[in-house]
């Protein structure tokens, strides 16, 4: 069958076809669709789940692998930081059933805190890393990734980038699953990592990598015979192919699909007759550094252009035009100069990302903001939709670092800046992911901060995945529900307030103001289902009392409030879900609720 598949879907299909038994992960753009796709498949030897965080996921995958199952942990690049501890040890301990660590990198970045390069992680952990260039290649390389993992008893990193994860391609395949027998766990001293064993295994690992090099080198290939050598990998390979279209004779390409460990032979063969080398790779100069080492060790010297001498940018993602510009800079050849057709283009300003219409977080932020009006407060934020609490006019997020850091950074701020009130915001899924330990620390060490848990009963930003607080599992079936209140109480926190952010605004402000009066550690749980999940029972409309003061719009920033061509304000009934927040700020009683009949 021929089907259009997104890169992540292609990986999912291929995993299933190649007999994967256990797939676990934590959602994060651009990695999420691997598991979202796999949950549509079922088999008696196949299990898939959303785990509470990436460390948990990788450790589950490791356990399954030790029992002989083919296992995968999926995450985005920053998720790999969370899972770094088990990964580094796992490279020494080793695996039994094939284990793939799927990591989605995000050059740009489009939706991440960092642009970090997982190929560097592969060097750091001494593990092989596949770097597919397209959905089709992503589909094809799963099989060898499992086989290499099983042959050498090592986890394999499968690194893709946004433009591979989220691009689509027609792929021809047969949906037929390879059935394997899972042999079960065998007790072996190898599985218990102790310092003496770790040393012995490290020696073995270094030796293994030398052998793997040869096996993996078949996935790297040389194209063309030109004197200008381009070394590239990942999606950049296609940008290069297009940039040299029409002048192919001048160039030859070394396409690196396995960036680590890199085999000397293919590199030395490639550079033999080259006059110059150009490295085209997004993010870190991984290929550039590896190849340069090989050249140096073999006494080869030739002109090299890359990131290290400033010809290729370190930051941001590439495209064909950027690659052409790089060639133009290096070769001073007019034919690579990119000229734009239009001189006088309209400069349309950026559309700022914002909380959705009716997002309960908007209400929660404003309740706290109004309760603290006139006070000196620091608001720490976290990772999720609600990071947008920093945007105007909400402006209630002063810091954002990584998952869970709102609660812990708040404690540091409180220690160093005693005079200020510190209030942290964290989402429900993030609280389970890595907020709990921070709250434990706050209780134990008597850090008197306030933690606001914005519970919208889902993992909103990545597309409504369930989590322990929802009690639903990946297929929507019953798991067990973990109560946020009980966790907070169980830690020992006595001051707890639960608020429905949609209920009366003024009343909520008063409750929160009262709650925040003293300096004790306290937790406020704002609970209301994500605006994109519930059915809309009502919407708001503006009546003739409106003086067009635009206060509602300027205070809430709700995208359902819009201006028409003549500057008159109106409410987009398709977006509005009747939360009533804007109504609280209208001095003219000009906003009224309309119930939907059906």
């Amino acid at each position, binding site marked *: 069958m021929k089907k259009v598949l997104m890169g992540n879907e292609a990986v999912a299909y291929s995993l299933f076809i190649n007999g994967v038994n256990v797939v676990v992960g934590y959602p994060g753009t*651009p990695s999420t669709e691997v598991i979202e796709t796999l949950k549509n498949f079922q088999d008696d030897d196949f299990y898939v789940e959303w785990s509470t965080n990436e460390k948990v996921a990788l450790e589950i995958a490791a356990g399954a692998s030790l029992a002989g199952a083919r296992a995968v942990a999926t995450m985005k690049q920053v998720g790999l930081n969370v899972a770094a501890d088990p990964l580094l040890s796992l490279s020494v301990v080793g695996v039994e059933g094939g284990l793939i660590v799927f990591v989605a990198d995000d050059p740009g970045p489009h939706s991440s805190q960092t642009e970090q390069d997982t190929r560097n992680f592969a060097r750091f952990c001494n593990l092989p890393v596949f770097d597919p260039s*397209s959905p089709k290649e992503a589909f094809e390389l799963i099989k060898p990734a499992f086989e290499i993992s099983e042959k050498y008893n090592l986890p394999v990193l499968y690194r893709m980038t946004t433009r591979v994860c989220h691009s689509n391609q027609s792929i021809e395949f047969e949906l037929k699953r390879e059935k394997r027998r899972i042999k079960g766990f065998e007790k072996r001293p190898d599985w218990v990592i102790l310092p003496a064993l770790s040393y012995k295994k490290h020696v073995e690992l270094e030796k293994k990598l030398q052998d793997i090099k040869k096996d993996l080198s078949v996935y790297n290939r040389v194209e063309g015979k030109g004197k200008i050598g381009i070394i590239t990998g990942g999606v950049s390979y296609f940008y290069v192919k297009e940039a040299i279209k029409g002048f192919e004779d001048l160039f030859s390409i070394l396409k690196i699909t396995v960036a680590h460990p890199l085999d000397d032979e293919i590199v030395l063969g490639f550079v033999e007759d080259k006059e110059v080398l150009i490295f085209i790779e997004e993010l870190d100069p991984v290929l550039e550094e590896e190849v340069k080492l090989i050249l140096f060790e073999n006494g080869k010297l030739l002109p090299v252009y890359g990131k290290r001498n400033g010809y290729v940018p370190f930051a941001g993602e590439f495209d*064909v035009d950027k690659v052409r510009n790089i060639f133009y800079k290096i070769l001073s050849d007019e034919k690579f100069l990119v000229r734009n057709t239009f001189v006088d283009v*309209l400069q349309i300003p950026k*559309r*700022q*990302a914002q*909380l959705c219409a009716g997002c309960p977080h908007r209400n929660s932020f404003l309740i706290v903001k109004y309760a603290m009006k006139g006070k000196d407060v620091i608001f720490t934020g976290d990772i999720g939709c609600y990071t947008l609490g920093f945007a105007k006019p909400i402006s209630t997020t002063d810091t954002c670092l990584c998952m869970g850091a709102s609660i812990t950074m708040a404690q540091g701020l409180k220690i160093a800046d005693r005079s200020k009130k510190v209030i942290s915001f964290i989402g429900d899924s993030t609280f389970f992911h890595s907020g709990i330990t921070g709250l434990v620390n706050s209780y134990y060490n008597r850090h008197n901060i306030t933690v606001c848990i914005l519970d919208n009963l889902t993992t909103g930003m990545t597309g409504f995945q369930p989590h322990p607080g929802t009690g639903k599992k990946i297929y929507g079936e019953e798991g067990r529900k973990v109560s946020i209140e009980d966790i907070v109480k169980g830690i020992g926190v006595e001051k707890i307030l639960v608020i429905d952010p949609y209920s009366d605004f003024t009343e909520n402000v008063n409750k929160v103001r009262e709650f925040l009066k003293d300096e004790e550690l306290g937790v406020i749980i704002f609970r209301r289902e994500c605006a994109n999940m519930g059915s809309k029972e009502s919407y708001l409309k503006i009546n003739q009392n409106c003086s067009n003061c635009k206060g509602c719009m300027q205070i809430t920033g709700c995208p359902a409030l819009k201006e*028409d061509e003549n500057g008159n304000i109106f409410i987009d009934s*398709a977006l509005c879900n009747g939360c009533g927040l804007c109504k609280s700020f209208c001095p003219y009683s000009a906003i009224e609720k309309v119930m939907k009949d059906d």
Partner: protein
Amino acid sequence: MTDIIIAGVGGQGNILLSRVICQLYTNKGFDVKSAENIGMSQRGGSVVSYIRTGENVGPIIPDNMADILIGLEMCEAARNVNKINKDSIVVLNDRFIRFNSLDFKKNQIVKFFELNFPKLRIVSAYDIAVKLDMPKAENIVMLALVCKDGFLPFSKEEILKALEQVLRPKMYEMNKILVENIYEKY
């Protein structure tokens, strides 16, 4: 080889439209590649899809190279004109979604397109979608109009087949009626 760019704002169904067009080309035997930006709260933000039918190409359309620009929203269409050239076909939805820092008026943008693109067609996809009681289907309205007017080489039957492959059954039934309506009345 055909390069198509679809520009709009989150919530207009840009990515679904891109999926359907990919399926249409795949059904015709082409190798299709496409890319879309999704992720960090694109609801209400800019959304762009690229569709390419050539071999050995990357997912992103280079500057000046797109053959067709489908603009689901005017500002977003204007934002992406660096991807097209004077010979490109531009099909523009008569929809203008304001945002706070914007100081352009709708007719300024229309004028810009009229001045620069001889192959311009402005359609009222949103108005039609609203009239047919499916305000969220301006994407499929656009598709039907674009195909009906011969800008994309697909018949009504081919559209329906692709929709059936891509959409869930209930959504397919609704969109089927929509497409039939457009071919009959618009």
